[in-house]
């Protein structure tokens, strides 16, 4: 591993941001997806339309929101609609091209859990729950997922399916007749996984600079399939790093202020 002037967390956000294009209409989850989506907007996709479930259509936040309903989102939005309208007309109505989700856990078919770990009624860990994720996962035309790699997060079987990926693989998602085509890519801090076109099982297709395939397999809670020719992820450009660090710094300064 050579010396890097960036962290894997930074790389993850930068790689995730590259998945988005200037023409996308993206329903953005809070946290990592929000960082990636805004980075895309501030670099290669200036006209991308970012939608947050709090009701803000086409927002251009100057700092990253701490919550999904920060004033920064409504102040910079083209339109603010009610939450029912957001879920009924815009998401369920098929107006969203990309859903960008994080998760606490993922399985080999890209199903996600953000609800609870262990038995639902007496959980080991009670997580926040669904929010908008289940219908983002089913209704956005396509879905990207970003989360950090670990055996705790990448598990053989989920205790609870909050948001459906490819269910049990093969054509099992198709049989649900969902409007969206499902997860296209899972971007982690170590590499990129993509569903096999037939089995829909996640396959490692890209390894980030300085990371080994073995390292990723060890951080995955199932026997991870590896593509025949695994590619090396392009390292961050200076511009990408600069813009990411700028917005994170602005965010830190803004969030450290108190009321008034």
């Amino acid at each position, binding site marked *: 591993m050579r010396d890097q002037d960036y962290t894997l967390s930074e790389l993850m956000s930068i790689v995730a941001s590259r998945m988005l294009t200037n023409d996308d209409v993206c329903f953005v989850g*809070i*946290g990592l997806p929000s960082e990636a989506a805004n980075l895309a907007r501030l670099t290669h996709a200036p006209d991308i339309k970012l939608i947050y*479930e*709090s*009701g*803000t259509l086409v927002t251009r936040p100057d700092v990253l*929101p*701490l*919550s*999904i*309903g*920060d*004033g920064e*989102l*409504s*102040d910079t939005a083209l339109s*603010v609609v*009610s*939450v*029912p309208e*957001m*879920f*009924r007309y815009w*998401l*369920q109505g098929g107006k969203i091209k990309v859903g960008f989700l994080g998760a606490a856990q993922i399985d080999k078919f890209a*199903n996600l859990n953000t*609800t609870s770990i262990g038995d*639902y009624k*007496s*959980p080991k860990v*009670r997580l*926040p*729950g*669904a*929010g*908008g*994720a*289940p*219908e983002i996962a*089913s*209704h956005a035309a396509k879905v990207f997922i970003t989360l950090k790699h670990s055996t705790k997060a990448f598990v053989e079987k989920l205790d*609870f*399916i*909050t*948001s*459906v990926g490819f*269910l049990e693989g093969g054509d099992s*998602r198709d049989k*649900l*007749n*969902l*409007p969206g085509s499902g997860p296209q890519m899972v971007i982690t801090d170590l590499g990129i996984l993509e569903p096999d076109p037939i089995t829909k099982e996640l396959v490692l297709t890209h390894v980030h600079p300085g990371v080994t395939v073995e390292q990723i397999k060890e951080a995955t809670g199932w026997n991870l399939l590896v593509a025949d020719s695994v590619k090396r992820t392009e390292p961050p450009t200076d511009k990408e790093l600069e813009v990411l660090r700028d917005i994170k710094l602005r965010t830190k300064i803004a*969030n*450290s*202020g*108190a*009321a*008034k």
Partner: protein
Amino acid sequence: MTEILKLDEAIKKYVKPGEALALEGFTHLIPNAAGLEIIRQGIKGLTLIRMTPDLIYDQLIGMGCADKMVFSWGGNPGVGSLHRFREAYEKKIPKTIEIEEHAHAAMANAYVAGASGLPFAVMDGYKGTSYPEINKNIKTIECPFTGQELTAIRALNPDVTIVHAQRADKEGNVWLDGIIGVQKEAILAAKKAIVTVEEIVDHVDEKTGGTVIPNWVIDAVCEVPHGAFPSYASGYYKRNNNFYLSWDAISRDYAKFQDWMKEFVLETKDFAEFYKKLEQENYA
């Protein structure tokens, strides 16, 4: 018709033990002052309904006011867990709490159905997820025209909905602006509605933006400046992210939480005094 009341009077008049309450607000305009007044009055046995329960529900649960929570995302946004909720649910401290859990889309639809006088809502959702297994208020329903299988969600009709808004006029017509979440639906779905506002003014209208909710669907309006703190009221004050971060430490330990609630909530006589004390101790 709407009465202009003091907050403690409105809570005393309309919030009864054992009722189902929705204190709605989607990050913005959360009716925190009203929640604290419920704690001060020691009203127990409540079912707490909200799409995004955060600090105020953590406080109500930690103080033993709640028997049940109905929600679709429960956390301290951008910070982490609600420790009082988690300890109640995982360890029954201070008491058992039942949960009824939804996704946002379903819960928003449930309020819409409630506001629309319908017993259920139809949505295309939840397919492939575990939710139908754990929530009996989710069923399948078939389109009578196309045969398509869809999801039915039972309507939500709170006994009392409480929201915070920026302004009301003297007749109790309420004006709010910015992120409006599901507040209008929560009011229209409820049997009784209380609205706290930043200020009561001579006149409200929609001519320059915002939404007016007319007075005849609102039972009480209470003027409570800073009443959404630590949430925000667009045009009045910003979200106090520091307090959300501080809450993580205050709430993590049950004893520390109890001390804090005693000192700041139970031993202050109203929200104004609570807020002043927070300012003095650099929380606000």
